[in-house]
């Protein structure tokens, strides 16, 4: 035996197919388990992905810069000057792909039939468009066209509640820096539809310069919203923005701006792993059973091999290899199955029947499963590592058999 490894790997492979029915059943079990792991992971990832994306769109941006007191006291008093030259330079460097300075103040909007409290956003439409923070769909009228636009764009739900509509006048009320109530009549130029109905009631969009004029704050803004790259990698680049912004401003990544979103992501990652391990544990009983049986049937054969001089280590290796082949094949089939079933679902699963329930969790009406390579790798790692660990016991017992006793057993 010059190449013991080649020999035992051939032996292991052939042994696997000596009882092909048993092997096929176990293979099917592993494949179903692996499929379930990946499928569930893709659904959950799709769900959190969307929750985070919706959350980031509302925030908006992955990183925001504020005046130090703004978050504790979101008032017009805590406005900030537009970005300095140093910060501007940092905002032009990758991975930043877009940024926008916006005014964000609490306000009351009134029609002749009612009033609601809202968040008034003074935006620069061109910059917000690249940021992706403008409402998704204008259902009537037009979008804002310039910072100096004197109209407002309101949500469809808010319009219904105020009994107002396109072209009608509404009154915006807020406070200036001296806490005088300021108000202005404006015309509704557009009505938007948002993925989350709550946002339709909450956000009123107006031109930035127009809002600055109403509040009498010159060219000051409330916040700078910045986006770029994958939201999971924000920790890598936000410190650079923070340094450029300087100490007088507070620069925070989304995980701290919205701790709920941040914790969602961590919970989901943990949950995926727990799910995979649980599925594997349910599988492992069958796996160990199969190996125990395989060893049991071959006690005499193993005794003979030992009597002929095969070392215990090689016998252990042979059983482990058999298990490895079984796991590997199961993984292959399971992965192929998962990709094949997720592909047709990539265009989204309609869950509008439970849309309002999902909205409580920050989700839209369509769920897009997200198949990520790291979930496939994670399931592979779980199955191989835990699978080989579980196989150790039967394999160890096989390698410790006493050749004489094993041979004489009937």
């Amino acid at each position, binding site marked *: 035996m010059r190449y013991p490894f080649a020999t035992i790997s051939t032996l292991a492979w052939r042994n696997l197919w000596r009882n092909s029915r048993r092997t096929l059943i176990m293979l099917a079990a592993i494949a179903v388990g692996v499929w*379930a792991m990946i499928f569930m992971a893709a659904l959950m990832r799709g769900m959190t992905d969307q929750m985070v994306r919706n959350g980031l769109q509302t925030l908006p941006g992955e990183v925001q810069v504020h005046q130090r007191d703004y978050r504790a006291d979101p008032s017009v008093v805590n406005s900030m000057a537009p970005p300095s030259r140093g910060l501007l330079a940092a905002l032009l460097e990758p991975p930043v792909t877009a940024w926008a300075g916006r005014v964000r103040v*609490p306000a009351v909007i009134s029609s002749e039939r009612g009033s609601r409290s809202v968040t008034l956003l003074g935006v620069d439409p061109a910059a917000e468009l690249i940021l992706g923070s403008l409402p998704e769909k204008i259902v009537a009228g037009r979008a804002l066209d310039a910072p100096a636009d004197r109209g407002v764009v309101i949500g469809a739900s808010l319009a219904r509640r105020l*009994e107002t509509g396109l072209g009608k006048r509404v009154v915006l009320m807020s406070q200036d820096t001296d806490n005088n109530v300021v108000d202005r009549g404006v015309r509704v130029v557009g009505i938007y539809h948002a993925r989350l109905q709550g946002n339709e009631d909450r956000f009123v969009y107006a031109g930035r310069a127009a809002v600055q004029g109403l509040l009498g704050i010159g060219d000051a803004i409330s916040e700078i919203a910045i986006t770029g790259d994958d939201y999971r990698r924000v920790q890598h680049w936000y410190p650079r923005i923070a340094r450029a912004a300087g100490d007088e401003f507070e620069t925070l990544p989304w995980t701290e701006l919205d701790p709920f979103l941040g914790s969602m992501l961590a919970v989901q990652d943990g949950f995926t792993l727990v799910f995979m391990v649980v599925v594997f544990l349910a599988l492992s009983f069958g796996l160990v059973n199969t190996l125990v049986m395989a060893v049991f049937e071959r006690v005499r054969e193993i005794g003979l091999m030992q009597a002929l001089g095969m070392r215990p280590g090689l016998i252990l290796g042979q059983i482990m290899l058999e298990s490895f082949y079984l796991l590997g094949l199961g993984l292959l089939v399971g992965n192929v199955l998962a990709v094949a079933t997720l592909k047709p679902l990539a265009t989204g699963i309609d869950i509008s029947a439970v849309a309002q329930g999902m909205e409580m969790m920050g989700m839209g009406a369509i769920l897009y499963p997200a198949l990520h390579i790291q979930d496939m790798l994670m399931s592979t790692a779980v199955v191989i590592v835990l699978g080989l660990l579980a196989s150790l016991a039967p394999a160890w017992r096989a390698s410790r058999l006493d050749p004489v006793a094993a041979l004489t057993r009937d």
Partner: protein
Amino acid sequence: MNVTWILAWRNLWRHRRRTWLTVGAMVFSNILLVFLVSLQLGSYQMMIDGSLAAFPGHIQIQHRGYLQDQHIYQSVPAAVELAARVRAMPGTEAVAARAEAFALASSAERSFGILLTGVQPGFEPAVSTFPGKVRMGRYLEEGDSEAIVIGSVLARNLKVGIGDELTFIGSGRDGSFAAGVATVVGIFDTGLEDVDRSMAQVPLAWFQQLFAMGEAGHSVVIRVPGLEQVQATAGALRALPGVAQGELVVLDWNALVPGLRQAITSDMTSAWFTYSVLVVLVAFSVLNTQLMSVLERTREFGVMLALGMSPGRLARLVGMETLLLAALGLGLGVAGGGLLSGYLNHAGFVYPGVEEMMERFMLGGRIYPEVSLVSLLVGPLAVFIGALLAALYPALRLFRLQPVAAMRAV
């Protein structure tokens, strides 16, 4: 005891390890299923109770359309009197009238839009948990007039404390200008950012006067002793004079908080996926074991057939073996799962990071699994049935067995 049963029981222990591994797979899945189902039912119960007790109540009487549009003129006439009549009805636990309007609240330094609720100070604490969350000062009392209780975030934003004055402006029921000054008597902290940021409560009588409501309100909130009484009480309310022929509607909690039931439904769906995977994996494990045990006894079965035993009786034998195996799994699994859930029902269960999510449904961070006949038996019974179904194939194979060929099999 029937001899076949004894035979089946003894056959089971011919491969001690294999039997225990198969039973182990069942017990593991059963414990997990009992735990998960109890956890699920427990958290649903808490979600419903928590959300409804916080503010909406079980049933509300409102003007038709108010739920959707929330126009101030969509009111309930003589709300206090209606509430008193409902309170006298059997089947109601607590009843209170409310009125709501949006207003701009201003302190000496800040202005914010708020949702102002007019409440009956004597009855409100029995229908809502918010009055119990007053952290500073006191809740409204009978006889209070120009007093207001506000959320903690609102208090911080407005920079007011107990004893400070708040001015608010809004529009009355008839479209008139409504303004008032109230003294802050209490600050509540519900832990819900949205509520703490925008909610304020004043005495109903003063609210009615301020917003030109006359005797009208916007809702009569009703709590019943248990969820199962909701439909009966709602039915009785619909027959009430003044409700039946007026423009009022009786809304149960499903209509008031549609998201709640949907959140439960969507959670249910993903949970069923997990459960099915577990059951299928266990079924595979049983299939494998029973198939092996049938195949290795081919010769034995051949002899029995040759001696005149019918294939049907052999199949029954395999069926009985599976039944005993599955019953063992069921018994141990239910016992283990019951113990675990029973302990956690007492001690509570925490999953790190989920607290933020649970806050959205107004729960504490701890989940108490609900142990009931349903949660104890649903999962294990599914596993039991799955195991029996899995044994069908090995049992049915026996009908194709030829005695002579079987006796010669290796």
